[in-house]
């Protein structure tokens, strides 16, 4: 795959930000939280606030990579009757509204159950940009890779501080869009202290690929975003947005935080 093709949808948007001399902001919210319609409004607010790329979470019954904030949101979304078709509809509305890449972050079983080919086709025709798959490793991803390539969807796999250089090489070769670097050994959730594992991981990842590298897990405010933006191509924020909704601040709270983080990725740490 040529570098340009591998950049895909999200990678192109991230590089556009990088060319403007800054890191990109990737904002995450789960679909269906606090309600299906309310979720659409909240996710649109990520774009309003200045996110360059959007990640829509697909709520799942057994989210082993998520901390309590996102777990609770997923439980509420599922209890509210959210279905996969609602997630696809959410993506369709947000993509049409925002005109920026909208990816879905999902555990693997819902996609497998929906049917990998069928999902890829339905998702692509809704305007979806790709999938971030936290419990799918490239060794198990042949079916997804084929479906994604056929539908020109991004395939974002994760690298971790524990990944060996061999694994980072394998994983980055399998990515399209960007590479998701998990900044900590742990689950999602806002953290007080910036991780000292993230920068070395980004350096090791960049040594293996020319794809953009996004850093997620733990970033919640502009200062942390500026710190991560110093070495990463994209800063990924999730739980902090969920907390805005949890606190009852609604789409306005999401938009404000996104705007503040968008300032953060534009300034020196």
């Amino acid at each position, binding site marked *: 795959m040529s570098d340009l093709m591998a950049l895909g949808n999200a990678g192109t948007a991230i590089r556009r930000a990088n060319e403007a001399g800054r890191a990109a902001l990737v904002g995450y919210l789960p679909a269906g939280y606090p309600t299906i319609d309310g979720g659409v409004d909240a996710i649109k607010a990520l774009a309003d606030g200045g996110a360059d790329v959007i990640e829509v979470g697909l709520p*799942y*019954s*057994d*989210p*082993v*990579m998520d*901390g*309590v904030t996102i*777990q*609770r949101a997923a*439980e509420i979304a*599922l209890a509210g009757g959210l*279905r*996969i078709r609602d997630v696809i509809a959410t993506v369709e509305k947000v993509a049409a509204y925002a005109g920026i890449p909208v990816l879905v972050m999902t555990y*693997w*079983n*819902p*996609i*497998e*159950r*929906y049917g990998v080919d069928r999902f890829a086709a339905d998702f692509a025709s809704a305007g979806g940009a790709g999938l971030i798959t*936290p*419990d*799918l*490793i490239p*060794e*198990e991803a042949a079916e997804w890779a084929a479906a994604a390539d056929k539908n020109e969807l991004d395939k974002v*796999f*994760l*690298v*971790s*501080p*524990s*990944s*060996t250089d061999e*694994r980072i090489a394998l*994983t980055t070769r399998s990515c399209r869009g960007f590479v998701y670097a*998990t900044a*900590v*050994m*742990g*689950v999602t959730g806002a953290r007080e202290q910036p991780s000292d594992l993230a920068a070395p991981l980004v350096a090791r990842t960049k040594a293996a690929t020319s794809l953009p590298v996004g850093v997620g897990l733990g970033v919640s405010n502009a200062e942390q975003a500026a710190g991560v933006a110093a070495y990463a191509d994209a800063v990924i924020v999730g739980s902090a947005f969920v907390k805005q909704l949890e606190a009852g601040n609604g789409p306005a709270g999401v938009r404000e935080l996104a705007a503040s983080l968008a300032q953060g990725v534009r300034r020196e740490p």
Partner: protein
Amino acid sequence: MTAVLPDQLGHFGRFGGRFMPEALIAPLDELTKAWQEAMADKEFTGEFERMLREYAGTPSLLYDATRLSDVAGARILLKREDLNHTGAHKVRNVLGQALLTKRMGKTRVIAETGAGQHGVATATACAYLDLECVVYMGEVDTERQALNVARMKLLGAEVIPVKTGSRTLKDAINEALRDWVASVDNTHYLLGTAAGGHPFPAMVRDFVRGIGDEAREQSLELLGRLPDAAVACVGGGSNAIGLFAAFVPDTEVKLFGIEAGGDGYETGRHAATITAGQVGVLHGARSYLLQDEDGQTIESHSISAGLDYPGVGPEHAWLAETGRASYRPVTDAAAMEAFRLLARTEGIIPAIESAHAIAGTLEIAAELGPEATILVCLSGRGDKDMDTAGEWFGLIDGETQA
């Protein structure tokens, strides 16, 4: 059936593999290497065998259950895993993994538990081998199983009630995985069944395969031949895979896994994953699971806490798909009848899990006829189930159905 399974990536045919966070892949690779090296090291296997013999009380007896056989209409041999230390086959797995933890230089063990049996076994092994022990247990289960919580605490373990999701076993596994992602440098996740991402299904099988290895030898000694069938209950499937492993190459021995049919699998309230589930991915491996149209896990139901799990180990999925083993459900009611039958005919109170195997054996005996000899894994003892049994049979209030 000649290839060595699983393959290098942990696949049993299309089942198994690793559907785990990347953060755990390198640690799982290290675990695989440590386990394979340990199994090739006579010092490790010798110490494991010594612990099994001197501490756990194995080899367990193979018992010719003549009175039960009379009722069943076929000769039934019981592999008495209920007589092991801690009262079940699970001691084999926890001793193996705890010893491996020591060998890897890790100092802390985490485990999930449903009713508390695996938690108690893990706490026991950790006390014995001087390891820090943390057990995740669904909040609902800590309330239902207060006595086992007390046992774990007495043994020095910390018990953490899990308040997310359905607050039962599958959520305890989720929470243990979340802990492990953050603690893997010094911590081993001592998974309680032959499920999960590679190498767990194969590693747990190999630590418990003494059940079948012993029973095969004991059968040859007692009968001069192999039994016609081997039967075990299947939740996650560790005692069943431990029994089956030795017999898989013996194609003349029929293998039967008995699933928890709950209220009847057609009611939707059951834990009969292979019988009534679909292929999917849960807790790190592809196998059968109970799920809805969107791939969300459905809660299982069984009177037996040890079988009350919406997934099943991937090697069972493969044995089912290839036809080498067959799986069938028995209901709560049938299991409880078998529970009482074994108590009345043999003076053995089985775990309700194991009572499912007995109930399945009664059906299989009728199918195979009086000349058949059926080997059954009596995987655990029933002391822990007396509250349930007392309530079921109305024994606690002084009224009995008998």
